[in-house]
């Protein structure tokens, strides 16, 4: 906290800003028109992810607007001295994948990015949240933001996940329970034994979708899992033991009071799938789609009716067996090595359904290299999947990877809004395990059938 004056929001210092091509051009233009510089290029990192093609990087880019948007970021980074992981650097990837893997994301930091899934970095006990382009400009110019304090919301997840149930299912279950606006105005803290036993990559999956419950930030107190993940990474502190000693003082006090709290029992969770047009419209994969008449309010009834019309689904219909056209394994939610390993564990020695297109898009060049070094690419290719270059890809469908109108996809991404994966496209959000099983069956499937 830099300063707090009466009747003004507090001035919050930002330790790290991540920048990408889509939400930054207007911010850099703003700096230029005011004659400002970037205050701390050493606390800023840019990359291209949203609009970058995921085909062979040596091929020309078809979309002239994508070319110009990437050129704009390149130019801005050169002019303002911002470090840039360009599309042929071999170090590029989705911002929320490369920050952690470089060791830039560390406990106790404040991190922002012009992207709502910045909440991902909360997995390290960092306060990380998405901002708009005006605020991107504020941080570029001053390394600070005017902020008011959010309320706190504890999400306690106790118990042990059953086989075939993953971090993605925890967060989809939470959002289904509290709703897409259920945590608006709050920062979530995930606690409990089930969260403690998650790996860092799994914690990132959970924190990533905090925004889908309305919370700008969601975090996990740092612990040995966090410190072990960070040890030896490129930007990890040189005096690592000293840093760890400081980080150990960060966790929330035992018995701390939150404005709100909710408890989930991990052992009762099942693989989750969404059926509607927002991430809160989700259910166990073995469930039936609810009927509008069982909704609590007229408001929710109308929302469900509208969603089912868009999705072309019937009330009361089982989710299992619903035919699909595409499977997308990727995005800042589920494109890390452990996600690809999970999907590969189901697809190993099997074939995807012949009608399907299955895209596997690693989150970064490093994830891609690591996956290839352990042969995951061969497993995907032999199963009949596409093994692509890293980027946001079909999660936001800005780069040519998109659904055709009416197509159904099981996707490991984070949003099933109308048209999110391509105009008229229809999305079922699920875990990498569920996505892989669905790829085999050509329909929404229960991955627990394929576990060995």
């Amino acid at each position, binding site marked *: 906290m830099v300063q707090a004056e009466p009747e003004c929001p507090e001035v919050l210092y930002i330790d790290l800003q991540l920048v990408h091509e889509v939400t930054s051009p207007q911010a850099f233009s703003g700096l230029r028109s005011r004659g400002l510089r970037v205050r701390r290029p050493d606390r800023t990192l840019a990359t291209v992810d949203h609009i970058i093609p995921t085909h062979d990087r040596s091929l020309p880019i078809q979309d002239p607007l994508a070319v110009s948007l990437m050129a704009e970021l390149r130019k801005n980074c050169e002019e303002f001295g911002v470090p840039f992981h360009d599309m042929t650097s071999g170090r590029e990837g989705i911002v929320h994948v490369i920050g952690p893997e470089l060791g830039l994301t560390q406990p106790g930091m404040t991190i922002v990015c012009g992207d709502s899934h910045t909440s991902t970095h909360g997995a390290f006990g960092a306060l990380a949240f998405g901002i708009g382009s005006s605020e991107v400009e504020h941080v570029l110019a001053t390394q600070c933001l005017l902020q008011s304090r959010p309320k706190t919301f504890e999400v306690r997840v106790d118990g042990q996940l059953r086989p075939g149930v993953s971090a993605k299912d925890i967060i989809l279950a939470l959002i289904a329970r509290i709703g897409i*606006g259920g945590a608006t105005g709050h920062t979530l803290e995930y606690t409990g034994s089930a969260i403690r036993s998650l790996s860092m990559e799994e914690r990132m999956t959970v924190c990533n979708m905090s925004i889908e419950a309305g919370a700008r930030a969601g975090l996990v107190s740092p612990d040995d899992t966090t410190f072990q993940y960070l040890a030896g990474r490129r930007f990890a502190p040189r005096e690592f033991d000293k840093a760890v000693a400081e980080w150990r003082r960060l966790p929330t006090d035992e018995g701390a009071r939150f404005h709100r709290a909710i408890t989930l029992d991990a052992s009762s969770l099942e693989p989750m799938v969404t059926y509607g047009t927002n991430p809160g419209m989700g259910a166990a994969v073995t469930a039936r789609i609810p009927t509008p008449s069982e909704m609590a309010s007229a408001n929710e009834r109308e929302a469900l009716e*509208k969603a089912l019309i868009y999705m072309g689904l019937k009330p009361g219909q089982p989710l299992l067996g619903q035919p699909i056209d595409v499977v997308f394994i990727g995005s800042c939610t589920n494109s890390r090595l452990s996600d690809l390993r999970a999907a590969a564990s189901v697809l190993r020695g099997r074939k995807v359904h012949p009608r399907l297109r299955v895209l596997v898009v690693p989150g970064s060049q490093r994830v891609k290299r690591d996956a290839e070094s352990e042969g995951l690419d061969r497993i995907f290719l032999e199963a009949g999947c596409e093994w692509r270059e890293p980027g946001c890809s079909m999660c936001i469908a800005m780069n040519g990877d998109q659904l055709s109108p009416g197509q159904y996809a099981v996707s490991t991404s984070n949003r099933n809004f109308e048209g999110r994966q391509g105009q008229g496209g229809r999305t079922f959000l699920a875990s990498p395990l569920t996505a892989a099983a669905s790829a085999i069956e050509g329909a929404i499937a229960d991955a627990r059938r394929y576990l060995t």
Partner: protein
Amino acid sequence: MVALPNRDVDTDQIIPARFLKGTVKTGLGKVLFADWRYLPDGSPKEDFQLNRPEAARARVLVAGDNFGCGSSREHAPWALLDYGIRAIISTSFADIFQNNALKNGLLPIVVDPTVHRELLEMASKHGEIEIDLPNQILQLPDGRTIGFTIEGFARRCLLDGVDQLGYLIGSADAISAYEATHEPRVSTL
């Protein structure tokens, strides 16, 4: 006023991602709600609220609960403003959208569910309303007034033309003092 009663309107609906490839903030009004407003051939869908002739001059949008959820794209308020919307009335707004709206002089006004229902009804008939920001009052045609709150600093910015970036730049000494005592643990260079 114009009514858009759907709850949980996400910013992907306000402006679909394929229109985020520009580098300027202007000219986005024509793609506001593009997938709800236009048929695939580009012609307007006549039954969509914003396409009705009476909605053409609407300055106030009365929207359903949790308006602006999802993506942080500031293109959403830019598109609404470019279309001509100056204020949105709802029972709740998503946090990032609300921040982005206020940065651009688009007023997010929160009212209670009872008032909201009444305003939705009025807006569906394209009724008029007066918004008094200095006194934080909605003036209804029948003479009634309804209070609302815009957070103090944001209101000051809007009314007195305080520029938030200017305010932050004015804090440069405090920022430097903070930096002097908080060594960065990481450098991206």
